[in-house]
């Protein structure tokens, strides 16, 4: 395969010389296509509207090394990240590579196939959907298409109900040098099937790395998917994620993304409606501090009539952290009777925090109900006083109010241990941030 010639910046170009050799003819095809597009794709910068608020120079200035040369450490003591409900339905990827030792599959009942993509080179769904559902055309997605080495594959036959939630655990190890991981996931839920997926990204050490998870989800007629995405990368990591879901007639897709880690996050969840009578959720909770940057650019694309969609995106910012939200809601011309809710609420705990909020509604149908709102505020002094007058210290009152603010977005997570884990994470954040730091 010819090497790409114009990938920017040069570091990606250099890495692209190490093309993975594994996979089927289909994979080779994906790589070739990605490379072709990469050659004519610009590396994003702040003059492009979509990247106006997010500075990518920390990425373009990092000397990433191919993972084989990065001096990665062994992953140890990782059992604590296993959720008990997924004791026999767990896929573990370390730096984007499948780990059979830690994975445990087979507890999902009839009609559910779970495994790593490279085990299914000629599976008809892989052939049909892999890389065909992504509609992103940016450098990062294309780079993943060029460099991915494996991924999670989840398939549910018609009428199959997964007996346990599936945990897709993405771990990133320590390393001598910065590296890039390219995790992938393909989920195909046939008619009337039902599955819960817990996707978790965890940085094990404090090293710099970049992960570019790309996931493709196909929800066929009357199927249900509950998708929880937890991002716990370390504070020197870059996390650029591209999850997209297609929803068919009478199907439901509910996704909850919790962003806690990474120095820089760019999350671009999308849901595309493929027929009438669908119900989908794209909720998010972002808790950031220090110099973290967390950017969510989402798309909810209503293409047919009768859809219910819901997006509650809540953000707590402390220190000098920076949150960006751009929520696009498209309602196409013939998509009548749409009921779409979008709300972006930002809580600023510090003087130096920054929030950019940009709801974006493009509605071409006339019989629709679209509510949207964006607020940026501090804790209400009246609420703080109320709790203080009931005996709580100011610090405790602020902690309770921040906790309560954040909690709303995770109460629909229906796997008990994950719900509890998220409550603990929220608690840990509010505890650590109840005394806003005044930075000079």
């Amino acid at each position, binding site marked *: 395969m010819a090497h790409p010639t114009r990938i920017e910046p040069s570091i990606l170009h250099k890495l692209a010389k190490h093309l993975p050799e594994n996979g089927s003819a289909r994979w080779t095809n994906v790589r070739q296509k990605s490379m072709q597009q990469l050659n004519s794709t610009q590396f994003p910068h702040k003059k492009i509207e979509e990247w106006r608020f997010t500075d990518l120079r920390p990425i373009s200035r990092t000397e990433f090394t191919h993972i084989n040369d990065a001096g990665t450490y062994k992953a140890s003591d990782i059992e604590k990240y296993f959720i008990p409900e997924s004791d026999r339905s767990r896929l573990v990827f370390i730096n984007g590579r499948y780990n059979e030792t830690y994975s445990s599959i087979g507890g999902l009942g009839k009609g559910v196939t779970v495994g790593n993509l490279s085990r299914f080179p000629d599976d008809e769904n892989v052939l049909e959907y892999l890389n065909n559902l992504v509609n992103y055309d940016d450098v990062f997605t294309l780079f993943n298409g060029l460099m991915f080495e494996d991924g999670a594959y989840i398939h549910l036959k018609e009428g199959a109900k997964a007996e346990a939630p599936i945990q897709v655990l993405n771990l990133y190890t320590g390393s001598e040098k910065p590296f890039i991981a390219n995790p992938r996931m393909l989920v195909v839920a046939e008619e009337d099937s039902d599955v819960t997926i817990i996707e978790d990204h965890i940085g094990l050490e404090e090293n710099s790395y970049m992960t570019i998870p790309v996931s493709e989800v196909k929800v066929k007629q009357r199927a249900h998917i509950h998708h929880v995405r937890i991002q716990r990368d370390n504070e020197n990591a870059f996390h650029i994620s591209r999850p997209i879901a297609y929803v068919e007639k009478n199907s439901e897709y509910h996704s909850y993304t919790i962003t806690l880690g990474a120095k820089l996050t760019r999350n671009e969840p999308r849901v595309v409606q493929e027929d009438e009578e669908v119900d989908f959720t794209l909720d998010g909770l972002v808790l950031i501090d220090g110099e973290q940057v967390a950017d969510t650019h989402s798309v909810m694309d209503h293409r047919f009539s009768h859809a219910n969609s819901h997006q509650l995106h809540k953000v707590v910012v402390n220190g000098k952290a920076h949150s960006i939200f751009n929520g696009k809601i498209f309602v196409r011309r013939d998509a009548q009777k749409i009921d779409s809710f979008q709300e972006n609420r930002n809580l600023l705990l510090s003087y130096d925090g920054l929030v950019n909020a940009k709801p974006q509604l493009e509605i071409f149908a006339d019989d629709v109900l679209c509510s949207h709102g964006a607020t940026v505020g501090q804790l209400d002094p009246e609420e703080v006083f109320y709790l203080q007058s009931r005996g709580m*210290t100011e610090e405790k009152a602020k902690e309770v109010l921040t906790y309560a603010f954040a909690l709303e977005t995770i109460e629909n997570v229906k796997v008990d241990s994950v719900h509890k884990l998220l409550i603990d994470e929220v608690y840990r954040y509010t505890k650590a941030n109840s005394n806003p730091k005044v930075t000079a």
Partner: protein
Amino acid sequence: MLEIKNLHVEVEGEGTEILKGVNLTINKGEIHAIMGPNGSGKSTLAKIVAGHPEYEVTKGDIIYNGESILELDPDERSHAGLFLAFQYPVEVPGVTNNTLLRESYNTIAASRGREELDPLEFDDYIREKLELVDMKADFLERSVNTGFSGGEKKRNEIFQMAVLEPALALLDETDSGLDIDALRIVADGINKLHHEENSVVLITHYQRLLNYIIPDHVHVMIGGKVVKSGGKELALELEEKGYDWLESLATVNGEAK
């Protein structure tokens, strides 16, 4: 128990004087009613006693059990036994009544040297108190005031008072927005909670509440001052004559209203 001496108060940073020399003494076991037209400073007085940070005391003092409380934070005042029932109780989504009250009860208990209660003990304790304000147990698991009707919010304030057992309770227009049945429930609750060791200050526009709770003293505030004090019959007189006949008292000594 509480002595307010020549209290002058401004809105923090604005320089508008709201209280212009309030004097008031409340003894243990007494019920006081403070009445007055809108904007007379009644609610401000209640908030300032509870320690609201929006206001600044420019002159005078508030003495509680022999010591000035001006330097105390709102939580410290609550620990000392003060309680304010809010005119507009605040909604706190995500925090249940039960959680808030257990937290409050135990913090106050710890600071007053009482025994803290574990969740089971607290559950028994709190259920008795529910009956006082005629509320169902599922009320405990609802987020504080969230989605409550106006009447439920007011009853919740009295319920909190019942649980926290303050030595001095200031009830800021707890009667407003209540229908006649709810008013009776709230008034009954307050009467049951009052005894010779604690004091209650009712802030109200209307004489109506005082049909149910008989005050020992009635004060009228106009223009940031207490212009007249008397017994329970003063409330009836106000009901009959309105506040106009007292307006002139607010400008005694040539001071502005």
